[in-house]
């Protein structure tokens, strides 16, 4: 499995083979290239850093793209190893600006510069080894907030001090150390979403892009010492609340969900075990196993002044006075997974974003008894301030913070245990924090294009309205309508697009220009049964 870091396993659309799904992805590529027209990144014109800026080379995909290191993606192993190399490169902003950055490239797979660093997906109780090498002109390191008992080269890691002066928060790889590096290791003791980031001059190095995410999937150690993944059972799935709003006690069981079928088809994944039963999944932490149903949103910001200063100083921070470098710190670009809108909605590994491999377009199909599993969203706030992230179209159910399920164990006084999960229309992700939330969308109003189900007001004459690029021309899911001359819709099958964005609206801009920055889209697709009857694919 050494060279197979991808969740997508059914062929490579660009390989020339034609496995199942290849044609489908090619369609999608064409569509996304249409979207890319907006992006106009001019990536091929970017000045090159010290490394090849060739396309990342992995197939296009959507949803969270994991790196599994040298271990299997599908089952736990005793030891899982990664190698990252701190390196420099360029990323592009939608307004055409090229930004000089530092980040972690996946040198284990001999991959070029990317920002952010790879998403390291591991199983609980595995021993994780991460080798850090360094191509930068300054020493660097990695700290692992939320991980306990981290070793560096076999010794307990921690701040390094030289003559009473703090050098770094973790053991460093020396500038230019591309051979030995430092090996960090720890047991992934708790499931959840975590940040990893530079522990050296972090104010500068994290701003420059030295960060990434670790996702720990729940697992338990059996009596024989083997590590086993936590898989949702039929009972767990039946206990998922299906509308905790108007019907707080109702569950999938009452909605008539075929949980046995879902288990048999391996369609459900688990983010957290129950707080008092490490072998079974908490119903609130169950989500669809469709790769497109799991998303990560690493929220960060860039002050281009800092990056330009570093570029002009040859990659060293000499003479950088942080609070007056010149002019005080002020961020102007705001990213999800290192990209700003509209690049956020491009697929993973889009070739026109060669060093920003991760997209954040979310997919959801309406909740029905036939489609009862939620979407998982993993938020990581990397910047020095928190971000308030607002998903349109429905609340998200916040289930975990900083890698901890927000539930208490049963007590004598409280047999159900405390449940501090909550549905929010605004997700507060504190600086350096992570939040896990599930999302669903239900066609609650039941609007359809049929007599007795239409919207109650008369259909306006479209010529009198202004129409958007992500508008299908119809209020009804799965329907498309006539659009005004000049509108080139990016919809394919009458799907809905809803925005999801930071609600500090100054940060939903690209250097002040709206509909950019920390914004992505939620794509609400017609139900599978409707899609099956369509001539157009929904992507």
């Amino acid at each position, binding site marked *: 499995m050494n060279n197979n870091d991808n969740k997508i396993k059914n062929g490579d659309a660009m390989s020339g083979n034609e496995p199942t799904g290849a044609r489908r992805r090619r369609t999608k590529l064409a569509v996304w290239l249409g979207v890319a027209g907006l992006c106009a990144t001019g990536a091929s014109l970017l000045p090159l850093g010290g490394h090849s800026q060739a396309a990342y080379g992995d197939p296009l995909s959507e949803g969270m793209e994991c790196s599994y290191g040298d271990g299997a993606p599908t089952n736990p192993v005793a030891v899982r190893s990664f190698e990252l190399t701190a390196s420099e490169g360029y990323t592009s902003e939608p307004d055409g600006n090229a930004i000089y950055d530092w980040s972690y490239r996946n040198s284990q797979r001999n991959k070029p510069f990317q920002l952010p660093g790879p998403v390291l997906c591991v199983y609980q109780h595995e021993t994780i080894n991460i080798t850090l090498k360094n191509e930068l002109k300054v020493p660097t390191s990695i700290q692992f907030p939320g991980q306990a008992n981290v070793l560096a080269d076999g010794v307990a890691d921690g701040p390094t001090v030289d003559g009473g002066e703090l050098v770094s928060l973790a053991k460093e790889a020396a500038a230019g150390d591309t051979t030995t590096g430092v090996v960090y290791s720890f047991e992934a003791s708790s499931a959840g979403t975590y940040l990893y980031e530079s522990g050296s001059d972090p104010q500068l190095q994290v701003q420059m892009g030295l960060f990434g995410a670790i996702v720990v999937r729940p697992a338990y150690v059996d009596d024989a010492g083997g590590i086993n993944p936590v898989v949702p059972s039929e009972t767990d799935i039946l206990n998922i609340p299906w509308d905790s709003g108007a019907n707080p006690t109702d569950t999938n069981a009452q909605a008539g969900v075929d949980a046995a079928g879902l288990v048999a088809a391996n369609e459900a994944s688990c983010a957290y075990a129950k707080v008092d039963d490490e072998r079974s999944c908490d119903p609130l932490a169950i989500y669809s196993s469709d790769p497109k149903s799991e998303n990560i949103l690493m929220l960060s910001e860039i002050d281009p002044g800092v990056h330009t200063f570093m570029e002009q100083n040859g990659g060293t921070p000499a003479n950088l006075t942080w609070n007056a470098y010149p002019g005080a710190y002020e961020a102007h670009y705001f990213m999800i997974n290192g990209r700003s809108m509209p690049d956020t909605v491009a697929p993973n590994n889009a070739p026109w974003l060669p060093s920003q491999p991760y997209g954040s377009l979310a997919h959801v199909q309406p909740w029905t008894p036939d489609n009862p599993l939620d979407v998982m969203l993993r938020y990581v706030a990397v910047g020095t301030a928190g971000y308030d992230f607002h998903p*349109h*179209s429905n609340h998200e159910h916040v289930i975990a913070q900083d890698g901890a399920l927000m539930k208490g164990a049963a007590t004598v006084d409280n047999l159900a245990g405390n449940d501090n999960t909550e549905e929010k229309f605004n997700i507060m992700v504190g600086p350096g924090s992570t939040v896990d939330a599930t999302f669903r969308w239900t066609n609650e109003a039941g609007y359809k294009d049929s007599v007795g189900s239409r919207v109650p007001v008369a259909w306006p004459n479209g010529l009198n309205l202004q129409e958007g690029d992500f508008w299908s021309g119809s209020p009804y899911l799965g329907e498309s309508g006539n659009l005004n001359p000049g509108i080139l819709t990016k919809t394919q099958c009458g799907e809905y697009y809803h925005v999801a964005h930071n609600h500090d609206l100054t940060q939903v801009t690209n250097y002040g220009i709206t509909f950019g920055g920390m914004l992505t889209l939620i794509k609400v697709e017609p139900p599978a049964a409707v899609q099956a009857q369509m001539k157009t694919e929904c992507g």
Partner: protein
Amino acid sequence: MKGHTDVAIGIEHEKESAGLFGRRKFLVLGGAGFAVLAGTAGAARALIGGPGQVDAPRSLPPVGLDPSTGRSGDAIAAPPLGVKHFALAGTDGWVSLPYAGNPTVGPDLGAAAIDPYFPDPLADPANTTTYAFCFRNVTGLDRAQVAAQKGHTQICAPIFYSTVGEEIWVTLTNLGLQLRPDLVDGHTLHWHGFRNAIPFYDGVPESSIAVAIGHDFTYVYRPQDAGTYMYHCHFEDVEHVTMGMHGIVFVKPDPGDRVGLVDGQQKAYGTADGDANGETKYDREYAIMLSEIDTRAHFGDAHIQATDWTDFHADFWTMNGRSYPDTLEPNGVRDEFGQLRAQSDGGFDSSGNAILTTIDEGADPTSNESRLFSNPLSSLVQAAEGERILIRFANLGFLDHTIVFPGLEVDVLGRDSRYVPHSAQRLATDSIQIGPGESRDVFFTAPKAGKFAFYDRGMSHYTGSESGNDAWVGGQRSEIHVYDKNTLAPQQKPNGWAGEPAWAGEFPVAD
């Protein structure tokens, strides 16, 4: 609109006010009563039409609508509590922040000038300081009256509310910007937090439609979940929101659910929302929107200068579109949804200005009431000892705010329109943190008579008065005035609109 027959179907009607209000502003409509208004439904037509249209009702029922209900014949059925119809218009104008140089404010209560941004040199020096654009409530106005509102904005947007089981229609008219005819901006209505929304009614112009200048469009909502939400324009959102286009909307639970209530009380969340015993009951409710103003950006919009929004630096912090000490002033000369009171009595002059004298006989034209004509929403909270008070907070600024209540113990029983019960993890507090785009439902029991301040803990968020005598000027600060038991008339409308005519001292002030 005039003379329409209002047919109730199972819902309490707003009472026709005997005194100041000759016209119903708040329409609860069903059945035949809907017919006259129905014409505005869904039609995106030219607002300023051809000959003969000016004096007609706002519009005639478009083809395809049932003239007896205003509803398209193939539409989804009306919900059990029927249809309520509001109308909003987007337009620009001038608003007031506390400026030391204004004679009704003075250097002890007003902020110093920020040259050249504040006060804006184009503002009316007697009353206003700052350019803005926002929604105005034009419910019930005819087409000519709506058109006459161009250039008469307010901040922040009107508060409106609904009940689970109703269908809400909001017709949005884009009047354009009087000062900026060069801008062809659309407007939209985004109900922030509305569950299971469809893009058609979500108001994001990129993924839906926007209302062009001179046109109108009717948004429809069928709320299922009680709670405190907010609404704002999503067109070039950062600019339109900060220029003023944001307000509070809230949803009350099923009115038939009286579990845990005594006469005169309401509750914020019903059994269906998880509040099975009436923990969220209250005697009075207030809604307060938190935001900020960067006077450079407002100046820029007035003077045709672009703003780099990532360089946003607020210099005034607002509650309901006002900065302290204006937050304490009574509600303005508009109704509970921000509509001019005058329109029911005096109508408008040839320029579209409300004729104020008919309702404000003897009012000093240089009074705060006149100065705050376009900042009509008070943040003063009034209570009688022992009463349960609800304050609905929403934040549509760009910054986190922490509101503290020294001397009071408050329960946060609602977050983002969801009921959160008091529990071992959620104890009473005296401060609430609220981020951009969030809402909180804050409850407290009024202690014995006295005055209590509540304010943003960010102490740098106050510019201070020009003279230095009042450090709170320019910020998010207001007060809770508690009166002796049984000395305050029951609240009839949120924020004291229409139900408590005696803001200015009819009741004994504790100190």
